[in-house]
């Protein structure tokens, strides 16, 4: 499904070069639910951005759904993002001036679906996330958890092959966080592959598999108690 080998990513500014990922390799299989953990600044978001084709990388190879997506032009990358990937952000990233219905509609319009198809998809995903009755609300009229549900509906409406989530519960209190996680698990149970970055070891434990990133590399250490491992890794580095 998603296969990266020897991927490296370097951020260059005038003063410093940051090796955000180095010799990074990961293989996510169809239908998996993977948690990505690691200390702050270790490269989790960088990995997710590259996986989601939001950023390019400097070395190595990346196969998504069997396709080498490392050398696509911007237009094709937009297309792949639109059709194969669903993104969920820590800050929800809804468009504040559009109501719930129109927010979910955004990627479907870029996809070029006709109005009837879009309506069908919007209504069914909003029902799935439990917000079928809120389609005329604007984001500011919703709670954080509800906003994240709308964002999940938006990510799912185009039937993506893989869902990428960067700290999807980071801005939510623990009750709402648990509900969102249950929703994500539910989506995974319906067959969508999921890669989720999280700081929360408890959430990470609920994923089928965890990968732990330290200093831009997948750590060999079993990440079952991530904070401790991270501290040890730092100390020994």
């Amino acid at each position, binding site marked *: 499904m998603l296969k990266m080998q020897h991927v490296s990513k370097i951020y260059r500014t005038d003063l410093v070069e940051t090796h955000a990922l180095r010799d990074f390799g990961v293989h996510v299989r169809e239908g998996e639910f993977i948690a990505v953990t690691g200390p702050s600044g270790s490269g989790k*978001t960088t990995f*997710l*951005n590259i996986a*989601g*084709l*939001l*950023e390019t990388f400097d070395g190595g190879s990346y196969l998504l759904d069997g396709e080498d997506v490392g050398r696509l032009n*911007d*237009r094709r990358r*937009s*297309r792949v*993002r*639109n*059709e194969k990937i669903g*993104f969920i*952000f*820590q*800050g929800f*990233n809804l*468009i*504040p*001036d*559009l*109501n719930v219905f*129109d927010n979910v*509609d*955004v*990627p479907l*319009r*870029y*996809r070029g679906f006709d109005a009837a198809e879009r309506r069908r998809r919007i209504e069914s995903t909003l029902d799935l996330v439990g917000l079928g009755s809120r389609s005329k609300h*604007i984001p500011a009229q919703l709670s954080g958890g509800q906003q994240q549900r709308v964002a999940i509906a*938006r*990510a799912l409406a*185009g039937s993506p092959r893989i869902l990428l989530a*960067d700290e999807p519960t980071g801005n939510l209190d623990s009750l709402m966080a648990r509900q969102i996680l249950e929703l994500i698990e539910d989506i995974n149970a319906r067959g969508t592959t999921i890669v989720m970055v999280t700081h929360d070891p408890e959430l990470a434990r609920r994923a089928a598999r965890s990968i732990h990133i330290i200093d831009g590399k997948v750590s060999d250490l079993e990440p079952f108690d991530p904070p401790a491992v991270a501290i040890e890794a730092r100390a020994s580095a």
Partner: protein
Amino acid sequence: MEIRPILSALLRNRTGAVLIALQIAVTLAVVINAAHIVKQRLDLIGRPTGMDVANIFEVHSFDFAGEFNYRERVRGDLELLRNMPGVRAATVMNQVPLSGGGSSSGYFREPEREGPEVAGNHFTVDEQAVDTLGVSLSAGRNFRLEEIDYMDLDNVDVDSVLVTAAFAERLFPDGDALGSTIYSGGGDPLTIIGIIEHMHGSWVDWEELDQVVLLPVYVEQDFVRYVVRTEPGRRDEVLGIVEQKLSELDRERAVRGVRSMEELAAESYRGDRMMAVLLTAVIFLLIAITALGIVGLASFSVKSRTKQIGTRRAIGASRFDIVRYFLVENWLITTGGVILGSVLAVAFNLWLVRTFELPKLDFIYIPLGILALWILGQLAVLGPARRAASIAPAIATRTV
């Protein structure tokens, strides 16, 4: 197209858009009316005069000593002028057409001021006037040499006249002007021997500018105004040496007042030209300000929507989708503006018509103005739109 969601986002965030739409409306209304006035003034300046304006100039001779023979003076000067290389024809006139100076009187078909009166702007000329002015006769004949009389200023009384077709039609609506007799006030009868197709008289702001009467007479006085026509393109060459040549012929008088007809006409039209220039400046200024306003609003909205644009890119918008979003948004704002602007333009014009007796707006200006503002808006928003399209999709995850 994504018009509906763009419109609803716009309506949720309307302050800036409404201000720009109002600015566009005012711009359309003012620009259309200003362009209308500019066009009208330029048309006025560019009207056909019937004369070879580009190759004509005047020069004066003034016999300040008192002792002089008018007939010899004029005969000698005209001979010199007519034989100068590059000169095509020369005549003596009381005034120069288009110069703002001249005389007019009322003409009648009946003696003793009976019947309808038509104003004629009259000039005293000799037999070379037709060729000198470059006017053409549409009927009849020119003056003959022997028809030109010498008279006192107070006692001008001639037998035959040339009149313009416009004058002839006013006085003889049935078209039988040629050969007819007309009267100036209580004077002796004048026979119309020829019709000038078209010619402008002295005052460019006079409604009856093209009603001209030419009288075949040399008016004997110490001040003589020569009007000279050169071969095409040789005006400045002749005009540069004419004063010296005339002076050399006889130094006991003053030769001065060399001015081209173009210069005289330009002075007469100065007000119209200044109005046209001023209003053109207003048009460009307004357009520039509006374009800046559009760029400003779009730049601001790109800046304040950076995260939203990054998110759109992240969930599948291509760069072109982003550019198109801003183009469509601008088009909606401009369209709102021009709808209001069209109404304002017509209202403004009606007010101008009523207050300043301006001609009514030609309605073609409205669609042209709308088209121009649509294009202006799209061009103005293109820069900010392209900046928006270059926002990295990673902004979506990198900003909270």
